[in-house]
């Protein structure tokens, strides 16, 4: 269970990216975080694993207060939070396998990792994960030889091999084509189900979010303005989050997609 209490972030530049955000994500729940550009979605995700230091408020994961931890404790807790990035953020000059295994860095000592002597169990798990996402053949390729969708799958493996209890996903599909986007979203949701993982998925594509998740949180100017089931996302609500626009297209598309999905 992940809990954010009164989470606030003010950047050095004076931008108040988050103000008093309260949120609770139970185990196994996949939550979509939507909101206009600059609403503070990335900031929120990064405050959870403290890639960005929150200004005030607390983040608690399974009873451990992350925002209070020292450097060593933080590293230990970061192992339980897998992160997936928009631009994949793979280390491009390393092989796919090394990228996946880098998810185990928090568990092995420096020299073992430096010499690439990971425990056999980690290696096996890495191959299993790569097989699960259909990339086992690519294990020894360099990460920059992969396509966007393949890279994102590697990114997912890297996050999952950490054996996390929550996934932090920052716009996983923004650099992908519509079809691949859907495949990646489906993969993330399925994997979360299989492993009973909580996930916060920060996403721009409202239709895509509605298709896959059970809960949607709308963020606007650093505050939560909507929290509910995907069906409750009406034109009114979207206007509240994103501002005045014609939303019928977006919602229409959702229905089409649903039918299409049902037809399969």
């Amino acid at each position, binding site marked *: 269970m992940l809990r954010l209490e009164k989470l606030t972030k003010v950047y050095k530049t004076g931008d108040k990216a988050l103000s008093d955000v309260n949120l609770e994500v139970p185990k196994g729940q996949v939550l979509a975080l939507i909101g206009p550009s600059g609403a503070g979605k990335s900031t929120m995700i990064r405050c959870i694993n403290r890639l960005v230091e929150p200004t005030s408020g607390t983040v608690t994961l399974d009873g451990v207060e992350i925002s209070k931890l020292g450097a060593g404790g933080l590293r230990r807790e970061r192992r339980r939070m897998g992160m997936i990035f928009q631009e994949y953020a793979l280390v491009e000059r390393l092989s796919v396998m*090394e990228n996946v295994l880098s998810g185990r860095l928090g568990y092995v000592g420096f020299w073992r990792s430096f010499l*690439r002597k990971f425990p056999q169990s980690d290696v096996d798990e890495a191959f*299993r994960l790569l097989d699960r996402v259909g990339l*086992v053949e690519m*294990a020894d390729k360099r990460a920059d030889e992969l396509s966007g969708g393949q890279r994102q799958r590697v990114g997912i493996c890297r996050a999952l091999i950490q054996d996390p209890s929550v996934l932090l996903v920052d716009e996983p599909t923004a650099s992908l084509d519509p079809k691949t986007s859907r495949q990646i979203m489906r993969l993330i949701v399925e994997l979360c189900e299989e492993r009973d993982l909580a996930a916060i998925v920060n996403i721009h594509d409202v239709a895509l979010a509605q298709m896959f998740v059970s809960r949607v949180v709308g963020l606007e100017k650093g505050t939560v303005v909507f929290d509910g089931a995907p069906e409750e996302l009406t034109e009114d609500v979207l206007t509240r989050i994103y501002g005045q626009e014609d939303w019928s297209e977006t919602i229409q598309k959702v229905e089409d997609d649903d039918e299409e999905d049902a037809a399969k």
Partner: protein
Amino acid sequence: MSAALDARVGKPWKKPPFIASSALRWTMIIGSVIYLVLAIGSFDVNWARVYRGLDRGWQFFVAFTHPDFVSRAGEIKVGMIESVVMALASTVVGIAVSIPIGLGAARNISVLPIYLVCRAIVAISRALNEIVVAILLVAIFGFGPLAGFLTLSFATIGFLSKLLAEEIEDMDKVQAEAVRATGATWLQRYVFGILPQVIPRLIGLSIYRLDINFRESAVLGIVGAGGIGATLNTSFDRYEFDTAAAILLLIIGTVMVLEYLSGIIRARVQ
């Protein structure tokens, strides 16, 4: 579970080596080790002499805390001015000569005989060390800054012409296309299509070269080609470390100022 997975699970994993062929890899590793052993073995260091030298090294280091600008102020001043003058003049002349040679050495706008001649000039200038050139020019023109000036001009020509030629070759592919499409003549194409693109880069590179020329001018004096190097050499010979320290500080200071200025100018023109 797929067959590919079966093949790999349970087996140790190794990072694929950088050099795939293991024979080649081992040849290279063993070759490097043998070379290192031989090379290090060939150094016959007189450690006792080095040890005695440490004291002198320390004196030199300490000299930086009280550099002596005064005792040889006259020589230092003359030397510094000579260095600066050589750097400035050779940069200007170097640029002036580099432009035609650079144009001639660009494959896409030059004719073959001219191209070959220009490329040969560039190659010779780049292959010959400044000091070697300076020695020859001193033998020919006698001691003094003229030899240094000619050396630096020659080096500048090699440096700038090559970059200029490459710039023009790159430029033509993308930029001049557009101009060519409008049916411009050769001259128009050159003036409107290429020069405006190249000039900012040329200015930046020239300033950078001025910086290099100053640094080089500081050593040419060692072989008698004028500049602060001669004064520095003398002060080392006389073990006047505090004067040497003063000169080195002046060189470092000037280089830093030049680098700073060239940074600003390059940022502004580009």
